[in-house]
């Protein structure tokens, strides 16, 4: 197990190194001189030269790459051209809110997707199955930005059930200021017992999280169903039936666990995907997450920030996969034996 873990970690490190290199290459390919962008439109040649110096643009490429890696490792993720602050600080501010949203969406997706998948598998070939399959395919097919607009217009503007936008009532900053530890508002509010902010945040979370949950719910339901059906067609399921267990018991008490393996890998993938997909949702609901930062960075060709966001998401992907691998070991003893 530990050998496996070490090898797995080594692989992850290799992937991260690759991502860093690729990011670096893309950064260098982006048109527009970052020095010019940084120094501003009316910069003198001397200022430009200083900026070039600052970004090390005059060094040979391998040296630049090496410096870049060294800086990354020492925690210097560069300075954003558009916010003019260290990218790492920017990310630390923006990312927790995104994480909050994505986590909420995934919780919804898992809580809804798995039972739906089970229900579909249980009624395979019958009406409930068909309707679950079709609706999960719809959920997977809906353009997220479009759905966000529609839900916002209907439920917030129209019916007034949910707030239109934002993370919590901004007035609460005055009446019950939040003590910040993790920067994840809901978590901080929960642990400091700040109920007004907590309830407000949860209320604000509902719509964006639902929108963002649509895709993962759909794929998780589909995958759960497929894996369960496959699993319930295996020999061991026949054995369980022959032991007197009913169909529902076979599915939920026996087949579900081995079937969860592919679902788990899927969740890791969907997690990374949802962070980026969330950018579009964040824009509509004005969620103060990574999305605005990323789109602003792209709009302004802010290469250090783009690279920062990319690296962060890639690192999360790698981490999520690592976590899933370990989790799979917990769920499936065969994986542990590897």
């Amino acid at each position: 197990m530990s050998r496996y873990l070490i090898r797995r970690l080594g692989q992850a490190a290799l992937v991260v190194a690759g991502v860093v290199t690729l990011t670096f290459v893309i950064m260098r390919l982006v048109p527009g001189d970052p020095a010019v962008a940084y120094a501003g439109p009316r910069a003198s040649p001397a200022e430009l030269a200083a900026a070039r110096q600052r970004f090390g643009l005059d060094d040979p490429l391998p040296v630049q790459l090496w410096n870049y890696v060294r800086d990354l490792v020492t925690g210097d993720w560069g300075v954003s051209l558009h916010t003019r602050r260290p990218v790492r600080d920017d990310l630390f501010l923006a990312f927790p809110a995104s994480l909050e949203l994505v986590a909420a969406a995934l919780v919804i997706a898992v809580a809804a997707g798995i039972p739906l998948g089970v229900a579909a598998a249980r009624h395979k070939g019958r009406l409930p199955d068909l309707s679950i399959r079709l609706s999960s395919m719809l959920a997977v097919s809906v353009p997220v930005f479009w759905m966000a607009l529609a839900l916002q217009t209907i439920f917030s503007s129209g019916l007034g059930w949910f707030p239109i936008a934002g993370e919590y009532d901004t007035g609460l900053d005055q009446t019950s200021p939040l003590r910040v530890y993790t920067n994840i508002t809901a978590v901080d509010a929960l642990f400091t017992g700040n109920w007004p902010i907590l309830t407000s945040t949860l209320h604000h979370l509902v719509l964006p999280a639902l929108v963002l949950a649509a895709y993962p719910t759909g794929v998780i339901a589909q995958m759960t169903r497929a894996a369960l059906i496959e699993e319930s067609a295996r020999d061991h399921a026949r054995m369980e039936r022959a032991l007197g267990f009913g169909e529902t018991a076979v599915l939920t008490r026996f087949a579900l666990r081995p079937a969860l393996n592919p679902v788990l890998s899927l969740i890791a993938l969907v997690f990374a995907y949802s962070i980026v997909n969330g950018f579009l949702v964040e824009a509509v609901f004005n969620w103060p997450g990574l999305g605005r930062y990323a789109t602003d960075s792209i709009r302004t060709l802010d290469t250090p920030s783009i690279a920062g966001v990319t690296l962060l998401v890639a690192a999360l992907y790698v981490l999520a996969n690592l976590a899933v691998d370990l989790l799979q070991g917990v769920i499936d003893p065969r994986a542990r034996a590897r």
Partner: protein
Amino acid sequence: MGNGTLIRIRGLVVRIGDRVIASVPELDVGSGECVAIVGESGSGKTTTLLAALGLVGDVSDLGVRGVDISGEITVCGVDVVAAGPGELRGIRGSRAALVMQSPQAALNPTMRLGTLMRRALARHGVKGAAARSRAEEAVKAVLLDPEIMRRYPHQVSGGQAQRFAIALALALGAEIVLADEPTSALDVTVQAEVVAVLRRLRDERGLAVLLVSHDLALVSTIADRVLVMRDGAVVESGPAAELFDRPRDAYTRELVAAVPALPSREEER
């Protein structure tokens, strides 16, 4: 139906669509008896066996629809064809148990053997200390170390897995084991051990066995009666000794003849 008759089949016909995949005019298994079904691949052996447990056409059969079963199947006094799912579940495991061909694949990979045993016992109303002692006893009866219950399927050998499946049947108090080629995935030496366990349980506890196999030689050593199937139909049936000594059907003859023989000292002389 005699008291000792555990399985009684009359005029069973299983169809998928318009195709008859198994048709068995008559089959009885009494307690303490070993009845074997032999025949070529696809001849309907497994189908017959599963039909007895009402398991043909269930979800496990890769998308099978339109399975049609007619005839009469009575297992441990329950009319399988007419029975509702609840009634069927009542006999499965606790009275008639299944042992399948692929040893490890028949056990849930994510579950310790002991967990499976515990759940199965709980399903049939045996819990707590009683369950534990029953499990231990059954496992010992098939010559396994009770320690095995802490293992996962991939941590046990094929023969152990098969014996554990038999132990499950014992613990649940099954009177008959329906075994679908229980040893064909095993090496001969291991096969001998599983067969020995089955024989011993039959002798000591009167456990009945309905055995599906394509190994004629194996069948000839343990079965009391044999059914030979081909293309979904029974071509010959009768007491084992008689059938092997004087096969009446051409196909049975061919089967018997095809058994490769080991050279022996007698020949050498």
